[in-house]
């Protein structure tokens, strides 16, 4: 059951498009669809990963955000330099909740902001000399760092700096990886290209430069790929994999380290959570090192159990039994959670708008709670993401790509969901409209949401938000109509 009939949903899209100037309308039409789970290929009905229209209020970020904020930033024992003006590093400092533990400022650097703080003279004369000096100063103050990445901001690519040469020299001098990342914000159309660029630089500047020869692998070694440890997600995932008998030797990249990256080419299987941001490196390791990769989903008990069994199927009976043991051991907890929360959430309708994975991956968790996702969309998904989404969503539900503030607000006004899961730029719009809202990027300062322990927190959070009494007070009592 969707919130609307197919005709109503199509009409809604038409109405929303009406306001656009003609060119823009033609473009936006291609990014909005009414779902039909029978469709096999999304490219026939939705366009994605295209430039955002100017002036429409997209929620999208940039390549720098995809590289520094998502892929590289969480590698905790390297220093990530925001190379360019001061803003980018400041806005992206310590806000993502990609948790790690360490001696920050000594051997880990995740919540710090290192920047070359470009001034006018750097733009005019170039920043290469400054960059070289920065490497020396980093080494002087942070000798335990394992390496450096240079996260390029817009001006770097526009003024013709040769950061490749400077980093190469820096790496030779320091005897550590110094990685040039050309993730200037104007490249590509969203965070997505930044993910790709970052993946490629890990390939070229880490994996290609020599692996961990001393590392002794085991037949049960796996790596967690594309888990950024938001609120500790990778930890509540890791614990399940270890309980079933596997050995997790690397986390990419939440709470990750350089050494974990370097030993990954020796694992037996790469486990890929965020396909969008790390499929590139998974494909590379498959081609180059023959390591298979498997997409999995640790949101909600249904998908967790499916995933544990799929993972176990790639190993021997010991692991298969391990998976069954793990699933069985958590079943009482899941039953108790569902007994408590499903009656409070049954039948509630949810609309989602997230980044590149969660618009499809969290659907199962909501369904485990008896809820229904009636609209979803990606900020920076590609069509392979939509291929995977169509099957997860019900008939006549709405799917929207790079949705504008204007469109989402009108979709919500019509559908009147019981909950919206999106980002902080959307949060306060909908809370003011009286619609319960959870941030699905940062877990709204909660989490973890991955794994069985995470599901418990997810259930608690969704219940507290959907059923909190605050939403009933939108109207002053003297304005309320008499019954």
């Amino acid at each position: 059951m969707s919130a609307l009939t197919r005709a109503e949903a199509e009409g809604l899209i038409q109405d929303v498009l009406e306001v656009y100037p003609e060119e823009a309308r033609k473009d936006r039409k291609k990014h909005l669809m009414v779902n039909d789970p029978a469709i096999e290929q999304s490219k026939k009905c939705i366009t994605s990963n295209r430039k955002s229209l100017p002036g429409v209020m997209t929620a999208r970020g940039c390549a720098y955000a995809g590289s520094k904020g998502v892929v590289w930033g969480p590698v905790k024992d390297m220093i990530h330099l925001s190379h360019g003006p001061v803003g980018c590093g400041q806005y992206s400092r310590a806000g993502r909740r990609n948790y790690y533990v360490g001696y920050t400022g000594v051997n880990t650097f995740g919540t710090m902001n290192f920047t070359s703080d470009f001034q006018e003279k750097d733009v005019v004369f170039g920043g290469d000399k400054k960059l070289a000096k920065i490497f020396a100063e980093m080494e002087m103050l942070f000798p335990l760092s394992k390496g450096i990445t240079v996260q390029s901001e817009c001006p770097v690519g526009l003024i013709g700096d040769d950061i490749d040469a400077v980093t190469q020299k820096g790496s030779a001098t320091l005897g550590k990886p110094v990685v040039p990342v050309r993730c200037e914000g104007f490249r590509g159309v969203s965070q997505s290209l930044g993910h790709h660029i970052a993946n490629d630089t890990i390939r070229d500047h880490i994996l290609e430069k020599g692996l961990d020869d001393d590392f002794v692998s085991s037949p049960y070694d796996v790596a967690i790929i594309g888990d950024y440890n938001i609120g500790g997600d990778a930890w509540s995932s890791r614990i399940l994999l270890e309980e079933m008998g596997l050995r997790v030797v690397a986390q990419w990249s939440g709470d990750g380290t350089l050494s974990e990256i370097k030993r990954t080419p020796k694992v037996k299987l790469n486990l890929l959570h965020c396909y969008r941001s790390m499929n590139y490196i998974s494909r590379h390791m498959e081609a180059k090192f023959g390591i298979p990769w498997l997409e999995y989903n640790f949101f909600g008990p249904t998908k967790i159990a499916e995933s544990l069994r799929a993972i176990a199927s790639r190993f021997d009976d010991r692991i298969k039994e391990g998976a069954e043991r793990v699933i069985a051991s958590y079943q009482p907890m899941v039953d108790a959670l569902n007994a408590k929360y499903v009656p409070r959430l049954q039948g509630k309708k949810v609309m989602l708008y997230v980044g590149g994975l969660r618009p499809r991956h969290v659907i199962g968790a909501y369904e485990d709670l008896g809820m229904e996702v009636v609209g979803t969309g990606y900020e920076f998904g590609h069509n392979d993401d939509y291929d995977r989404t169509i099957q997860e969503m019900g008939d006549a539900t709405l799917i929207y790509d790079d949705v504008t503030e204007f469109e989402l607000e009108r979709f919500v006004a019509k559908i009147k969901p019981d909950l919206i899961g999106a980002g902080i730029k959307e949060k306060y719009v909908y809370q003011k409209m009286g619609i319960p809202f959870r941030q699905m990027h940062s877990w709204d300062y909660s989490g973890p949401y991955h794994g069985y322990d995470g599901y418990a927190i997810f259930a608690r959070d969704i219940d507290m938000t959907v059923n909190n009494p605050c939403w009933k007070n939108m109207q002053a009592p003297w304005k309320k109509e008499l019954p």
Partner: protein
Amino acid sequence: MSQIAEHIKPCYPLFMEPEYRDVLSRKATECEEKPTQETLEEKFLWTTSQEYKDLNFQREALTINPAKACQPLGSLLCSLGFKGSLPYIHGSQGCVAYFRTYFNRHFKEPIACVSDSMTEDAAVFGGHKNMHAGLQNANSLYKPEMISVSTTCMAEVIGDDLNAFINNAKKDGMIPNDLPTPFAHTPSFVGSHVTGYDSMMEGTLRYFTLNDMAGKAVGSNGKVNIITGFETYLGNFRVLGRMMREMGVDYTLLSDPSEILDTPADGKYRMYAGGTSIEEVKDAPNAIDTLLLQPFGLTKTKKFVEETWSHPCTRLNPPMGLAWTDEFLMRVSELTGKGIPESLELERGRLVDMMGDSHAWLHGKTFSLYGDPDFVEGMCHFLLELGAEPKHVLSHNANKRWGKRLAKALEENPYGRQAQVFVDKDLWHLRSLLFTDKPDFLIGNSYGKFIQRDTFHKGPKHEVPLIRIGFPIFDRHHLHRSTTLGYEGAMTIVTTLVNAVMEKLDRDTIQYGVTDYNYDLVR
């Protein structure tokens, strides 16, 4: 089996459970090639030393943990304060996503702002096309009364000309000719968010008045204009209005975002609310004077107002604390001929009363502080009035001249003699200062919490508690709604400071059966 349905644990305390301690410690020892605990402790202690401080202050190229942001953040805040204004930022879209998020986190409010999403082709050919389509789309969808245009560094590096682009867009019918489009170039590699505010303010005043000065006469509308500069305490806009109303002074706040950044939850989303109207801006040259509450942060605006409006721009200090609020009110009184009413004198008396009540807890306490230049200067001045002693006074985005002037003023005050002023230094510098020369407290924004944690790690007696006054404040709720200017703001600050002192004392003396003294019921 960690979770129990009736008692669900989030990150903390979940990850304190033995099974997670075990998982994490195995990860650390088996996978991370982490230095030994002894090495970590030893290196940590080294980072707290005088030797490290000296190395740290040798830095010439690297900035670590800055205490400033970039220009367009400031232009966005300025734009939000005008009625029906849609902030529009010409350049890369990621910047706008960051600005919106930054303000969302601080104000817990929606922030409407569009970008024209320039990408690689625009880097080559310029952002002309983006501006055309962007203005048209933004106007069609969001129907603003005005579009306030500023820039990201991408547009600045390639040299896009806002004036020409906007005019062409109008000529080509993308937006109506009469849709106001104030604009300002706001390169992020010059100055800081404070500069961006100043630039956008100047651009807006210029746009609406430069060619409309005929018939304007200073003082003819009997009003006083007030410009706050980059100001994030919503109470400050309100208290300024209240003081003016109590004085019977007609006033215009040029840029007033106190409505749009504090809209109600009543079932409706407002993209526009409150703000200074275009008519008020156009009428502003007719005022008696324009008072700039951030003298350091509004230099461009000052120049324009002096030269084009011929306003005296009466020199003021930021109206923080007692004497500088007195000064502010007296200047307004002199300018308008309106007396300072008893209600404000009463309020002043209440503040003095509070300062007397609390003096014994604040006298001689040392405070290190950082933030935007005018805030830091105002805060310093008020600390001196309380008999408290500024210790490290740091403003990343101030200049040497400002630093010298403030150092001199501190030198001349018995409570300011031990103060050291730092400009163009960052929070990693400040960390070294706090380790090598400990103050009692640190005043600053949320980023200071990392310094507090580091000092605590060295040992409880080294801990420097953070008192959150500044911007941004992400990790406490609703503080942005309070007031720091005027007598009212001073009351908030005294209350905050004195209670921080007492809370610290309670934490220090909470040991049962040990420190049973000074853990007092009555203070």
